[in-house]
């Protein structure tokens, strides 16, 4: 199933990746090459086969609902591109 240029723009938007107009066509060609490679899967009969998500078929482990992390707010906020008064700063979203 080959993509069209509008699909590239739609997927880029879903992925929050800005794609300049000049990049869209080369990206389309690359993605279609990879999708062609992936397409080989569709010929395989997988009826009755259980999907495999963990090689040992281990289910997600549960743990007690306890606080395990110490408060490291200052150290973690220091990693942010912009922070102020204990908060992450982002562009205004509500006028």
């Amino acid at each position, binding site marked *: 199933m080959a993509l069209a240029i509008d699909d590239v723009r739609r997927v880029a938007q879903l992925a929050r990746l800005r794609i300049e107009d000049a990049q869209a066509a080369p990206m389309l060609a690359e993605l279609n090459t*990879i999708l062609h*490679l992936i397409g080989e899967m569709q010929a395989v009969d997988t009826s009755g086969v259980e999907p495999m*998500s963990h090689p040992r078929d281990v289910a997600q482990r549960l743990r007690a609902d306890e606080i395990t992390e110490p408060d490291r707010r200052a150290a973690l906020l220091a990693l942010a591109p912009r922070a102020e008064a204990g908060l992450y700063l982002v562009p205004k979203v509500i006028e």
Partner: protein
Amino acid sequence: MFQLGIAETARQLAARAFSAVELTQHFLDRIRRHNARLNAIITLDEARSLAAARTADEHIARGKAGSLTGIPILHKDIFCANGWRTACGSRMLENFVAPYDAHVVSRLEAAGTVILGKTNMDEFAMGSSNETSWFGPVRNPWRTSAVPGGSSGGSAAAVAARLALAATGTDTGGSIRQPAALSGVCGLKPTYGVASRYGMIAFASSLDQAGPIATSAQDLALMLNAMAGFDARDSTSLERAAEDYARDLERPLRGLRIGLPKEFFSDAVQPEVAAAVEAAIGEYRRLGATSVEVSLPNMHLSIPVYYVLAPAEASSNLARYDGVRYGYRADAFDDLVDMYERTRAEGFGAEVKRRIMIGTYVLSHGYYDAYYLKAQKIRRLIATDFARAFEQCDVIMGPTSPTTAFELGSRTSDPVQMYLSDIYTIAVNLAGLPGLSIPAGFDAAGLPVGLQSIGNYFAEARLLNVAHQYQRATDWHRRVPADFAG
């Protein structure tokens, strides 16, 4: 001093033949002299390394040395190490200083290792040549116009050039074994779930696994002893009793059954690689092993399956890089969404974007069953192929990579051609099995050939035994690239 290997170095440290500080200084000097030609190491902190070495010397003096006390190692830059810049080969994390240790890093620190620095890698571990790194490509010590393989290319090249005794790596589709093969060193990917993924920057979580890169199977065993172990902070970590991965090293190979998958010995293999692998199998027969042809009929599907599962999981894992909490943020933008989109467009390189796009597409509305679920079903068929093969043999052998190291730039224009470098390694990740690559000769141009051995689940000690016995009979693993032998 740089050619002793871990076990002998530990003995000499204990005997006070040299101190941990002298040893660390020796490797830091080698790095200063040689790294510029390789670009294998991208972060150094000499004062910190020497301080760790002084602590190691104190432990040795007080008789409190652990298995790896004073052993200088490098960490792939995918592992968070508290206080160390951890960039994962990406502009996105160029200035990120990790605020905590990965489980593997803390385990190796507890065992006494000295961190020399962090190694270059393909961006977010996506690549097979170490050319997608924001920090520039790594060069192969055997021929600096060639790639070292990837994504753990910096770790493999550094160990090959003897800039450290060992290094950590990660392997999602071959990223330990393929660079080990192309750089002429040893690399082990354990069974999925043996080493914790906590603090290892996530690429494809159902495939990612940490492992060691070193110059001998014995050293891999000593490293894995420190790296492996249950960790409640990784939800896929397996709860198993600790084991000594060196326990079977000296076991004779008489009666070992080697399975040779016919799919591994096709025309796609460079003839010199095939010849070296066949010579290695011949050596194993002399050591008492027998061989049997086996088949992995779905192996050709491993690349299509991988390029659904890995990008899908990557697109989800990499959604966290939004320019808000840490990492890169674009300078100029109109609003919040524009900030996300420009941050990610500027912070990620071309290969990472390609995989995010593929992953986002295959997970988008209406396509999940046709791609992700289908791939997970074929993944089970591939795992079942291995289970059948292991009914007839103890270990599966073949080439690690279809070719020796290729020239820088020769495959960057064709992503699919690059993906084919991992044709013999990816199926092992999909099945979650342990796999190992060791040097087994050279091609006519003097580039190393890797022999891959694949074991059943939790057969790491057996794989290391099989590799160690070969290394007692041969000396390929002791060869040092001429430009780095001094």
